[in-house]
């Protein structure tokens, strides 16, 4: 198998692993297959990232039908960057899932969990790797349908209801997306994104194309939980099994952001999206509202997992804020924050998963004095929390730095001040954890069983370490993001 097969293999490995896990019918072999497939995809994604950084974008003709007639997989610096994030997080979460899902799920259903996990990974990787607008829809459905079921597997009975809410809103999102694609196909007669972009340049101001832009914007915004289309997210993240929350929070919405970037800059083009239409103003306004309201709502949550879910909505606001600047700094900030927030939030949800394992759930009443019984978990949450705030020396600082740079570059000093000021709200909600875990006396409901098992702590700490590492060494994250931003603005 040569390197030119990598764009297909990175997606196919988890896709084929899913039925193998199903046929295994037992938890252990299913888990091993899933972990191996995610690891393989991660290695393949890293190899692809190296390849596209030195040699430019890779095009892969599925079934040897040349594009634009056949389905094309196209991996460039941006998609390789997202592929590395998704497959990397999947590889870290898979070992965690063994301990966590075994405790949270019925034993006879575990193999189904791993099959679904593989499908979800394959769907997200496929959305990233494909260069075909309809193929993207198919992978979006694979990822969404499997994530609905994964969320519904949660221990709490409300998981079923939140999965249903997500199903309804997610289906509306996917339908809007496919309506948009239908309109674009009507106008251009092609489904290949690069070909579509070339054909759209003459007719970009016609009404069907504008309608397509509106449908795709709303559809994808539902998937990425842009305010005010975020309503499915808090419940889904709160009641899903811990491993699922960590994986989806780190990757699911990020891939949708990637799709939005692809369509805005790769298909419709900056001229129509940013110059003729007030998309950047709309995005800016929604991002600002998302950051403020979601952060404030997060402050009042009684459950740490739910608090972090609201914080995710705010952090997505920072990403879309970067997109709305549409400058090189802004897009760099958006892409780098996509990555940094992915690993930071992944770390936090993995650690909270450890708390949930010991305490049943992560309500603040169970966190009183937690630092005494679970010191490593608490320390990890604080460090990743600092990265969420954007303290210097953490990954979060790097993305906030580029966001502020972008704001200053655009001459919007108020926006720079706003970004710094809203970080203070993040300080407040992370402080709530510090106060409960470190300053409060040991509570009656606090778990006394000790630390989470090493199988859960190690993956979580890998991501905690990564969120510190990428605060110091930005050669991969920022340079990759900068290259991606340059590519988008071409």
């Amino acid at each position, binding site marked *: *198998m040569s390197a030119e*097969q990598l764009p*297909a*293999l990175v997606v*196919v490995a988890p*896709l*084929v692993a*899913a*039925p*193998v896990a*199903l*046929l295994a*019918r037992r938890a252990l072999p299913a888990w091993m297959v899933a972990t191996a497939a995610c690891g393989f995809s991660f290695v393949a994604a890293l190899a692809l990232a190296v390849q596209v950084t030195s040699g430019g974008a890779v095009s*892969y*003709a*599925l*079934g*040897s039908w040349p594009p634009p007639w056949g389905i094309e997989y196209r991996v460039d610096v941006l998609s390789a960057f997202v592929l590395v994030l998704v497959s990397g997080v999947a590889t870290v979460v898979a070992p965690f899932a063994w301990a966590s899902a075994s405790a949270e799920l019925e034993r006879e259903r575990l193999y189904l969990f791993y*099959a679904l996990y593989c499908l979800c990974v394959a769907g997200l990787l496929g959305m990233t790797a494909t260069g075909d607008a309809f193929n993207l829809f198919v992978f979006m459905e694979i990822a969404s349908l499997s994530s609905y079921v994964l969320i519904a597997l949660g221990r709490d009975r409300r998981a079923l209801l939140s999965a249903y809410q997500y199903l309804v809103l997610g289906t509306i999102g996917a339908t809007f997306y496919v309506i948009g694609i239908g309109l674009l196909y009507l106008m251009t007669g092609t489904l290949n994104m690069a070909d579509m972009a070339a054909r759209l340049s003459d007719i970009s101001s016609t009404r069907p194309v504008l309608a397509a832009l509106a449908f795709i914007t709303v559809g994808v915004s539902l998937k990425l939980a842009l305010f005010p289309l975020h309503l499915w997210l808090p419940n889904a993240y709160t009641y899903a099994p811990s491993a699922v929350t960590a994986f989806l929070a780190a990757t699911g919405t990020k891939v949708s952001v990637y799709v939005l970037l692809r369509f805005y800059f790769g298909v419709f083009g900056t001229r129509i999206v940013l110059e003729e239409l007030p998309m950047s103003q709309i995005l800016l306004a929604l991002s600002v509202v998302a950051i403020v309201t979601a952060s404030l709502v997060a402050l009042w949550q009684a459950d740490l997992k739910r608090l972090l879910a609201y914080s995710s909505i705010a952090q997505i606001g920072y990403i879309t804020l970067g997109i709305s600047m549409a400058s090189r700094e802004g897009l760099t900030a958006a892409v780098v924050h996509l990555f940094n927030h992915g690993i930071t939030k992944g770390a936090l949800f993995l650690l909270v998963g450890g708390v949930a394992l010991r305490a049943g759930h992560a309500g603040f009443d169970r966190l009183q004095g937690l630092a005494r019984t679970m010191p490593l978990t608490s320390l990890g949450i604080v460090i990743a929390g600092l990265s969420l705030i954007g303290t210097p020396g953490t990954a979060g600082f790097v993305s906030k730095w580029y966001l502020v740079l972008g704001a200053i570059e655009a001459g919007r000093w108020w926006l720079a001040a706003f970004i710094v000021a809203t970080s203070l709200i993040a300080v407040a909600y992370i402080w709530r954890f510090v106060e409960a875990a470190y300053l409060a006396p040991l509570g009656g409901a606090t778990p006394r069983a000790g630390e989470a098992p090493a199988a859960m702590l190690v993956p979580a700490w890998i991501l905690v370490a990564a969120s510190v590492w990428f605060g110091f060494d930005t050669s991969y994250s920022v340079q990759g993001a900068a290259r991606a931003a340059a590519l988008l603005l071409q």
Partner: protein
Amino acid sequence: MKRLIVLRVVAKMLIPFMLLFALYVQFHGDFSPGGGFQAGVIGAAAIILYALIFGLPAARRLVPERLVETLLGAGVLLYGGVGLAGIALGGNYLDYFVLGRDPVSGQHRGIFWVEVGVALTVSAVMLEIFYLFAGRGHRFDE
């Protein structure tokens, strides 16, 4: 419905033809409308008719749930395997051209096995959904 002799006799007469028709739709998919999806649905419909007339336990004895689940995964695996066979024989993923002696026979062979995979998965999913809904709470025995 087990006691209604008309239904039982008619169902017994119909089911073999339904299964045969499923196979016809499957293998004639090259030349006329049809293919794996439709064939899978028709095949599953035959089993579902059997379940409606003779009861769910009888259908479960005929096509156990374990078999359904295996077929479900096997179909997807067959599809993916055809794709990987393309890579193994020196082409791209899902490359049918390299599967036969010449490109045309390769295309025939590739689409044939892919459609078999589709039919297996579709009929298994249909049955699985039916079993899940029919098996909830009460039994369809009578």
